[in-house]
């Protein structure tokens, strides 16, 4: 898309959004913040008056030399990515896109990151600042458009991944990075044990790896960086070439693996690096190891408690991606312990006294 096409849809509706939030606050009416409505499956259902972000659209400022872009939250992810690509830049956290309508606000509110996460960082690592609509309908600015800023608490990162339960993201500033000059993807036939061992060994070396996954007897690796190092690493690792689109299919769940069978639920296990395979009754073909093994997609009929206990024992947690499926968990997110829950509640009460922002989206209580 050209700059012109992107800016044609530019529209700042923050005033109207503020009015809507203020009214909701005064009348204590719950709001359901809607970006592109593409991640409806994720999280708990929300009953509320829709607060539609899609019209709040457009790139507010983009200076490639500063490595900073500021966008309105309703901007389509695809439009932002196209604008960055024109300057050979990208959002380094590779946000998943579950459809053309995915908005940047939804991406930040869910805080999901793609295959590059372990090497480049998560969504929140690239959020430099936000304009937030608070419970009283005020548009306030936190963080900024500079790389470093430690004045005040880091509200922008707190909002990232909070799924709109603490406030409405109106504008977001990101740190962006150049698209690597060279890239090569490869696949190697390898058992799971060998793959995990290989990844641990490779991880201790300064190699240009930016994605690593294992499934059904194959290790998949993406190399990105300077031409010389990518070539050298490619030669030393060998293997067969792999389509680059493989990573997008993993990121966006369009890979065949994500066809979930009747009676199964899709789970995401988040585990410390180098965690051994969990002792769970799940066939190897129903597990997809991403993030070098730290993120594991699992199709299973096992109950939430069994999965969560195994993850917790290993230092991780489990999220159900199909809460509505038969066999899915009614609590998609791992419950918090009493102390954490207390401080989550305190925060929610402070920032959303009347529970108007996406109530019940994360946990029943807030």
């Amino acid at each position: 898309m050209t700059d012109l096409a992107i800016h044609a849809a530019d529209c700042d509706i923050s005033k109207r959004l503020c009015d809507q939030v203020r009214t909701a606050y005064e009348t204590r009416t719950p709001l359901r913040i809607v970006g592109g409505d593409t991640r409806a499956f994720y999280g708990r259902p929300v009953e509320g008056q829709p607060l539609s972000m899609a019209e709040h659209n457009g790139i507010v400022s983009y200076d490639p030399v500063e490595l900073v872009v500021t966008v309105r939250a309703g901007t389509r992810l695809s439009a932002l990515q196209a604008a960055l690509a024109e300057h050979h830049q990208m959002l380094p956290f590779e946000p998943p896109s579950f459809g053309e309508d995915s908005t940047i606000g939804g991406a930040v509110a869910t805080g999901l990151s793609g295959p590059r996460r372990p090497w480049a960082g998560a969504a929140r690592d690239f959020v430099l600042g936000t304009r937030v609509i608070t419970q009283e309908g005020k548009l306030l600015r936190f963080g900024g458009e500079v790389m470093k800023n430690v004045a005040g608490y880091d509200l922008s990162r707190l909002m990232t991944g909070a799924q709109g339960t603490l406030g409405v993201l109106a504008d977001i500033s990101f740190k962006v990075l150049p698209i690597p000059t060279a890239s090569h993807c490869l696949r190697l036939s390898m058992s799971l044990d060998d793959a995990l061992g290989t990844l641990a060994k490779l991880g201790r070396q300064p190699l240009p790896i930016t994605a690593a996954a294992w499934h059904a007897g194959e290790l998949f690796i993406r190399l990105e960086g300077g031409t010389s190092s990518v070539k050298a690493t490619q030669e030393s690792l060998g293997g067969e070439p792999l389509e680059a689109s493989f990573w997008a299919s993993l990121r966006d769940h369009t890979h065949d693996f994500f066809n979930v069978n009747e009676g199964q639920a899709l789970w995401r296990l988040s585990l410390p690096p180098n965690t051994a395979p969990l002792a769970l009754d799940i066939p190897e073909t129903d597990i997809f190891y991403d993030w070098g093994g730290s993120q594991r997609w699992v199709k299973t009929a096992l109950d939430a408690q069994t999965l969560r206990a195994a993850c917790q024992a290993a230092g991780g947690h489990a999220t159900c991606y199909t809460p509505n499926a038969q066999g899915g968990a009614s609590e998609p997110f791992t419950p918090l312990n009493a102390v954490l829950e207390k401080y989550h509640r305190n925060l929610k009460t402070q920032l959303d006294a009347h529970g108007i922002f996406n109530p019940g989206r994360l946990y029943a209580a807030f």
Partner: protein
Amino acid sequence: MNILFDERLDGELARRDKAEVLTDIQQAVPTLTLLHREEDLRPFECDGLAAYRVLPMLVALPENLEQVEALLKRCHALDVPVVTRGAGTGLSGGALPLEQGVLLVMSRFNKILSVDPDARLARVQPGVRNLAISEAAAPYGLYYAPDPSSQIACSIGGNVAENAGGVHCLKYGLTVHNVLRVDVLTIEGEHMTLGAESLDAPGFDLLALMNGSEGMLGVVTEITVNLLPKPETAKVLMASFDDVEKAGRAVGDIIAAGIIPGGLEMMDKLAIKAAEDFVKAGYPLDAEAILLCELDGVEADVDDDCETVRRVLEKAGATQIQQARDEAERAKFWAGRKNAFPAVGRMSPDYYCMDGTIPRRELPRVLKGIAALSEQSGLAVANVFHAGDGNMHPLILFDANKEGELALAEDVGGKILELCVAAGGSITGEHGVGREKINQMCSQFQADEISVFHALKAAFDPKRLLNPGKNIPTLARCAEFGAMHVHNNELPHPELPRF
């Protein structure tokens, strides 16, 4: 300006009898080392911002978590404020004690609990020195990336509290990007784990919130950091310029060429001279500014990048470009930069270090503004600059023994920060607000934003016992300071947009 706690503006503190508090805590935590005599308290009266000193009521030096927990519970019950201190190298008075408060010193928590080379993690106690982590990881070819210039002394707990940065931040991130998990004790003495060894944790991102929260939300008791493989090679180019603005523009040109250097630092003439006199780094004394550009990674890529950067620098008008020939020369180039503060300290009885950040494109304008302020005030200013990420460290030279010079230096410092805010930047990039920049917070944030910060604080510490008077000003303080401001609102660039 007097930066000491002022109950009229900063809020009332409970009055407690020192002897009673001492007896109470001694009885509750008999094994805890508690200092209470003036001569024992003296070494703790300030942090790295040494112009300001306050004797704390008591100093606690716990050795285990049970002691910290019990101490916090007693302080909470007695309404006694608690100021946490790491190594005391902070430059914003964040660990400045309170007369009516306990100073909780975490320096005895100095153990590296584990290094896991395959998971690339280290678990450490908060009093561990920043550099000690990289030293412990070195046998495995790993290191901890954030490298504040104070890294031989500052503690990782203090780094988390300040979200500390270093010369390698642009590429490798700040503390917040390199910490996976922290264990925290709340003011009520509850244990809480934020983050996880996995790459995310359920619930709100309280880990991100804790980074940079300046000891206001909890006491950090354990940290798990991410380790990185040491780059195969690092090469550094030094470019000289006959004009500061040209050097500033060259910084943008390097990034526009698609290169993210490991480090990209700039020094102006005065800073060059100070560093050269101090460490003989081989800096060109006739240059108006130098850029140090470090490229690291895999040998072959680094060589390609060095070539690209060299071309960019030539085109940008560098008068001389030198590549460090070997590791020894590279270390020498960096020694000048890393010792810039003490080097400037040798030129002048006192100096005052600022920490504003700006969008890089504003550099020429802001440098002009600083030069004008320097001229008006008659105080020399040396500029040291994390150029890659827009973090300036103007060092204002003064003599505290000369009547009025400290006040003048503070006034110039305050105006420099306002310049940064007006240019779309921030009053602090890495040193924190602490007590020092408490008034400037009122120029960066509106009252409504400050109220949200107070709401966050109230979620964790409703009695405002953790580090009161730091980081976030009261609205009363802003009203008073704001009023003063309107009165002499003479910003050097009134035409710049305000945010």
